[in-house]
């Protein structure tokens, strides 16, 4: 048992830092600073993806033969930490984190050859068609139907909470192909082109007034059967694989640590009535310390997962924990953010959050993102399998209840 960092990883960190220093443009960094969600501003983040792609570092977690980097688990963690530290905007996950791994696991050679390079380069932007108005936590009850018609499926129905559907040119989705039997056994995984006739995308404006989510309607939309991933009626297998990836593949602690440090810097600039700074106020400090010690624990939980992965072991239940802990800490940190900013947090200037916009912040720049981040973060315990669903998974899979 030890915390030793291999020599090779220390050099690697320097190499990553040097690359980030020279590659991150002012525009990309501004977008990073103004990202108040999992999803960064599209134009800038896609520019950043192209730079990473050119370097060959766009999908470190993919197998090398498909365009991955071949890095160790430790190197991947170093890379992720440095991205957070540099305030680079996070890459849009639907293609790189979700669809790509599914295709690698279940796609045909033809599908892999066609789609994977376009995911890496950013030529395709993907969205995820899972939830429906009547199928959220009970995803398997989804009703969007794909009727078999010769070499095609004809799709009718609707998907909701489809992030960035209005920016995407591709969608991977779950459809029903059989109505009888167990709900899970009649689901098929498809890929489609968003320009196919019969698709309507309606953005949904969120609490933060940003149209990040969409509802998508399908009216006799034809999808060739060669766009099916896995077998007909076996899409649930593919979907489950993807959900595991979505839940276990992410470290929350590095970003939370950076956010808490930033919060302390902001608190240090707020003068209290007693003449000291908010940073030294015992009540404030106690709350932040409680959060920080929890983040320290989470960082070691995440290290334990990586250590298990490196040793070829299945971290099992630990990875289902990190989604709950990471998102709930995210919510606490954004709460502390608006508490720290006080009335400044209420100043509502969504236009000033648009990178490259003309709107000047009325208050300090650091105050711009606090409220939007707080509002947006309410979603993180809902998406990706709500935290109630996750607790159910722990109860069932770990505790055997």
């Amino acid at each position, binding site marked *: 048992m*030890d915390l030793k960092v291999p020599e090779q990883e220390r050099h690697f960190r320097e190499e990553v830092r040097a690359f980030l220093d020279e590659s991150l443009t002012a525009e990309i960094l501004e977008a990073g600073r103004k990202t108040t969600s999992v999803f960064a501003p599209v134009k800038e983040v896609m520019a950043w993806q192209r730079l990473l792609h050119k370097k060959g570092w766009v999908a470190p977690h993919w197998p090398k033969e498909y365009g991955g980097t071949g890095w160790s688990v430790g190197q991947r963690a170093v890379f992720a930490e440095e991205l957070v530290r540099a305030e680079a905007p996070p890459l849009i996950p639907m293609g790189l984190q979700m669809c790509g791994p599914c295709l690698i696991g279940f796609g045909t050679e033809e599908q892999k050859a066609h789609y994977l390079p376009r995911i890496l380069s950013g030529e395709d932007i993907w969205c995820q068609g899972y939830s429906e108005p009547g199928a959220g936590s009970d995803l398997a009850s989804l009703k969007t139907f794909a009727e078999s018609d010769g070499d095609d499926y004809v799709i009718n129905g609707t998907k909701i909470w489809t992030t960035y559907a209005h920016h995407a040119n591709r969608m991977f989705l779950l459809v029903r192909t059989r109505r009888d039997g167990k709900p899970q056994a009649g689901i098929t995984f498809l890929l489609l082109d968003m320009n196919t006739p019969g698709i309507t995308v309606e953005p949904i404006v969120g609490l933060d007034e940003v149209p990040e989510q969409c509802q998508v309607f399908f009216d006799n939309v034809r999808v060739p059967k060669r766009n099916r991933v896995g077998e007909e009626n076996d899409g649930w297998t593919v979907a489950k694989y993807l959900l595991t990836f979505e839940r276990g593949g992410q470290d929350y602690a590095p970003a939370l640590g950076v956010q808490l440090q930033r919060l302390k810097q902001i608190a240090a600039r707020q003068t209290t009535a007693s003449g000291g700074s908010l940073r030294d106020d015992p009540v404030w400090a*106690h709350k932040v310390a409680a959060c920080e010690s*929890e983040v320290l624990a989470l960082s070691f*939980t995440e290290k334990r997962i990586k250590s298990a992965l*490196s040793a070829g072991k299945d971290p099992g239940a630990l990875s289902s924990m990190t989604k709950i802990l990471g998102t709930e800490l995210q919510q606490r940190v954004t709460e502390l953010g608006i508490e720290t900013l006080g009335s400044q947090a209420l100043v509502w200037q969504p236009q000033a959050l648009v990178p490259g916009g003309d709107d000047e912040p009325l208050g300090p720049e650091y105050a711009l993102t606090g409220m939007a981040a707080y509002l947006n973060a309410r979603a993180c315990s809902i998406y990706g399998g709500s935290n109630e669903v996750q607790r159910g998974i722990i*109860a069932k899979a770990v505790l055997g209840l």
Partner: protein
Amino acid sequence: MNFSLSDEQQMLADSARRFVQGGYQPETLWHQFAELGWLALPFDEDDGGLGAGLVETMVLLEELGRGGVITPYLATVVLGGGILRRADAGWRARYVPDLVAGDLQLALAVDEQERVFAPENTALEAREEGGGFVLSGRKTVVLNGDQADRILVLARTSGEPGDQQGLSLFLLDPTSEGVTLTPHRLVDGHRAARLQLDAVRLSADTLIFPKDTAFEPVRQVLDEAILALGAEAVGALTVLLDDTVEYSKTRKQFGVPIGSFQVLQHRMADMFMALEQTRSLLLAATLKTLEGHDDARQAVHALKARIGGAGRHIAQEAVQLHGGMGMTDELAVGHYFKRITAMDGLFGGADQHLAAFAAG
């Protein structure tokens, strides 16, 4: 970075678990510990020890915590032994062999009544007189104080309570004139004593470290005690969770096991996460201390705060989910509840350590 146990460490864990499950005799426990080599673990091989480190202590204490074993290990080996390991060769040669053989029990007296726990908060006075020292004052909650052959007493030789300077540590023979020991139990079944000193005369050679310099070694030893307590807590909390889950699968109400109720499932999932986060902090604090990281003490504070917070959460939920049975002295859950409660009260509570973490 690696969180796997070595083969030797795994063997230690296995043998400790077998011992705990095997129905030991409390009367001969201490000499069995000696025979198993557990009393020798942290001491240098040159001093007659096994030269093991904090990870081995963690492994052993987690198993003892899991077994709910009541022992003077913390007082004698971790606290007393921790002081001896930092003392010069003469002290080690004189006391380590007896300790390792199970023939010497120790106690460390720091805590004082109406003074929030902190070594620098020591007021008990040791006045220099005639080439020796005269000690007067009272120490409370001296763990193992009633059974210890020698008590290490932290006293003030200069300065004021609150000063890190001016603290000295004395080796006290509890049969000395002017010593009054009042033995008592702690809520969790451990033994302790109140120590009253009335003009107790000690010669200069009872001073373990140079006069006025005991703060730093005592603080280091208290950090190690918190790590040991953390390991014991993780063992005890594992049992509290496992017993609760098991009970919820067998206890039926409304015709079904109560563990089938979602409201209880989610609470047990939260207990599980609280336990794993405690284990993560135990690993963070232990390995950072072992490797001498700059932020090691921060991690120790975070761990102690968590033993209090998460410990209370898990233990209280365990009692609640056991219903009326959780309130009885019959089930193990009640005993572990009391042990966890006691842990928060030792060496400074959760709020105190969180405040120290915030200031760090």
